[in-house]
């Protein structure tokens, strides 16, 4: 599903380039549950952003399904990730002014899903995540765990093939974190490919495969 070849990312700072990722080679198949680990500054988020097409690699090739992402234009790329990828963030990034229901509905609106279908999709998802009772609440009225639940629900509502989760439990206490991880496992069993970046060994234990990054180098690929 994903093939990274010699992916390098650097930022120009003065006359020197600061390398964040160095010649990463990585293959991920459909249905995998991959965990990217490493200390702060190792390049975990950057790797996820590149896979998620929010960021460009400075060098190297990126193939996603049948597409050569490194050759695509911005517009086509955004079309691509809109279609196939769902994002989960450490700080949830729900729209504060929208209720749970409306937050879930928003990606469908951008996908121009018809009203009746939209309604049933949102209701199904609320049901599946057992948050029907919270559908009219605003994010600020929810606990962190609940917000992340909504964040994940929003990520999968449009039925993506791939979920990218950057420190999804970073702001949660361990009990909440555990629930989120169990949810990811279940989703993975249903066939969704998941890539998560995390510090936590415990989170990593849920995934089937662990990748270690250090100073931009891929040091271990278990």
């Amino acid at each position, binding site marked *: 599903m994903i093939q990274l070849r010699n992916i390098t990312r650097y930022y120009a700072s003065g006359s020197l380039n600061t390398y964040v990722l160095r010649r990463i080679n990585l293959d991920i198949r459909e249905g995998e549950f991959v965990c990217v680990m490493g200390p702060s500054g190792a390049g975990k988020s950057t790797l996820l952003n590149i896979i998620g097409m*929010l960021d460009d690699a400075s060098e190297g090739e990126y193939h996603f399904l049948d597409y050569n992402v490194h050759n695509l234009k911005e517009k086509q790329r955004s079309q691509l990730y809109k279609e196939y990828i769902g994002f989960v963030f450490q700080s949830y990034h729900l729209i504060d*002014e929208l209720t749970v229901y409306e937050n879930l509905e928003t990606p469908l609106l951008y996908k121009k899903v018809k009203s009746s279908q939209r309604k049933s999709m949102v209701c199904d998802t609320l049901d599946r995540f057992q948050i029907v009772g919270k559908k009219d609440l605003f994010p600020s009225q929810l606990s962190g765990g609940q917000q992340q639940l909504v964040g994940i629900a*929003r990520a999968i509502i449009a039925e993506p093939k791939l979920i990218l989760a950057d420190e999804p439990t970073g702001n949660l206490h361990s009990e909440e974190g555990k629930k989120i991880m169990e949810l990811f496992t279940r989703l993975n069993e249903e066939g969704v490919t998941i890539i998560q970046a995390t510090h936590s060994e415990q989170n990593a234990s849920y995934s089937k495969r662990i990748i270690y990054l250090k100073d931009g180098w891929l040091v271990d690929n278990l």
Partner: protein
Amino acid sequence: MIKNYFKVALRNLIRHKSFSLINIAGLAVGMALCLMILVYIRYELSYDRFHKDADDIYRVILENNFFEHSDSLFLNIAPLPLAEAMKEDFPEISAVAQFGDEGQSLIRYQDKALFDNRVFYVEPSFFDVFSFPFLAGNPEVLEKPYRAVITRKTAQKIFGDDNPIGKSVRYGSVFDLEISGILDDIPINSHMNFDFLVSMETRRDYWHENVTGGGMISLRGVGDWGILSGKTYFKLRKDCDFNAFEKKFQSWIDGKYTEVKFMKFILQPMTDIHLQGRGGFELENNSDLRYVIFVSVMALLILVISIFNYMNLSTARSTSRMKEVGVRKILGAKRFGLIRQFLGESIFLTLFTLLLSVALVELGLPYFNDLVGIELDFNPLADVYQMSVLIGLALVVGLLAGVYPALFISSYKALDIMSGNPVGVNRKPSFFRNGLVLSQNVIAIGLIICTAVVYQQLTFIGGKDKGYETKNIIAVPARGFRMSKDLSSFTEKLLNHPGILDITRSLTYPFEEGGGATHIWYEGMNASDPTPFFVWTKVDYNFLDFYNIELLEGRNFSRDFPSDSKNAYLLNEAALKALGWETAVGKNFGICERDKGKVIGVIKDFHFNSLHESVQPLAVKLSSNELYSMSIKVEPDNLSNTLEYIRNTWKECSVVPFNYFMFEDRIAEMYRSEQNLKTIFTYTTIIALFLACLGLLGLASYTAERRTREIGIRKVFGATVTSLSLMLSRQYTKWVLLANMVAWPLAYYGMNRWLETYSYRIQLSWYIFVLSGAVALLIAVLTVAFQSIKSALTNPVEVLRHE
């Protein structure tokens, strides 16, 4: 999707209540003021439009170019035979109306006597030119002598609920008039106002019988082009081109009127009169196009300030919606969609604001009307013009205010926004915002300066020494005494009262134009020479002393010289200049050849017309007749007592009701459009300042919010409240200071240009500029300081814990 946008917009508004309030209130006030001024401008432009074919109606006025070095003088009079001749010679003309303005006249009915009746002498053709609809009767009733048509208001005033048709009233003490028709009331936006229309036949018949009075114009025969009398208005046929007609008329009149070389007759469209009619013998005090332009510019500036405010605050706030934009982008929003969302939001908000401002106008218009002294209507639902202006305004404002935030906020990459605080996200708009703050303050400061200058100039004009005393004078039109001994006993009794200092009488009050003389006679004149246009009046012995008019040369009228009562003249300085005389005392002079006399003294110029125009030549005669204008000088204390005494004394001596006005009030009335301008300027400036402050306040609170973390950190490291407040305030006061630098030269240039249009003007003084700048700065500091101190006082622990 629109529902989604709508919800987010609304909830955002509610969440940032104070911010939204500032934003919307500022715009609503700006729009409301702008709307009000638009309504006012429209009113000023609507003058005389109610006449059918208003655009085809013109009048003939006289242009007097006697003074080569000053502007020409315009007079709303024309030769007597002109109307008849025009009708005969120009097939282009469909109707001509010649009429005479008799001014306020005494009308008696049964035991009622009313002074304030404006009387015009008209022909039936008056109604072929003007559209004043009849409620009863028709124009033909004015074909007969001693017939009159009155307005509904006048009918109500004189006859109450009785039917006036067929009833007789007494005109002065002269003759009876039969009321033969009733007109609907004259619209407020008419440049002519009258209560009585008396048939011209009346005048002809009466003059024929009694060749007296009416001034010297009546002494010469009808058919003489030298007689300047009455107003001449005419209506052109629809298919006639005015410019071609004007040329034709010019060469025609040059052949007809050869009497006085420096006098020209020109045509003026009726719809121009209200805003451009400036000169002698106008029917009403007209307004001034300059003022309308002035006020329009003010409206525009206010709108600009409030739009800038709105843009500024929206842009500032839009950064706090970065996260939403980022999320939306990741969820698949395209740039265009975001632009549409933010623009739509802005337009929606301005439409909502528009409703508010309409409500504000409805609430504020009565006060505005009071201030300006007119009756404006605001009814957008019934008026397509107002409606479309409103909606257009909202759309334009919404677009202008929304376009920058929309473009700016949608231009960021999702990743930049989501990853927190990347380069550029917060920097970019501050340049733009500061630019807006700067220009707002430039406008506000500029307006303060302009207001100060306009205020000074208009106060100067209003309070300028007019050359005669205006204070503590009660004016009593002294008509209605049966015998002259009644009048003298009235005067005597008044002078016995300790509160009454002096009394004088004259033909006209010093602020009025008396008669006009086109054929003066003077020593050494050449019969073929043109004679300058003179204004003349008649006064009592003590007139000069009473009004404190300075005598420059010679002597005043005196009882020691019996001949004074026959043929003595006082001339003003302008008269000497017009005649080219170095000294005048002892020279022979007459306002017409029959009225020859000697000049006994020269008086200082005083302004008998408004200060817009320079003083015209004036000849003053002594008289004991026709001195209808009585002036009573009183002690300012106990005025109401004194007034009561005068009223009671009047009742004993006169047969008509007492009527008076305060001299100063009447003079203020003459400067009403200046007064209006002053009022509008002052209020607009206050509002502009208020808006600019709102903008600063909004920005300051926004910055404080954005910088809470920085403030927390600084406090942890030992910053004091004072240093923090200063740091936060400086950011904005800096722009106010800079705005001064820009505003001063602009205001200086603009005001200099404006002052040049006045013949009597103030000097621009530097302290106005400094003071205006200081005021703006002080207000800005006060506005920002409150917010700055508040945020400097926050507990750093609370702020940083949140992070």
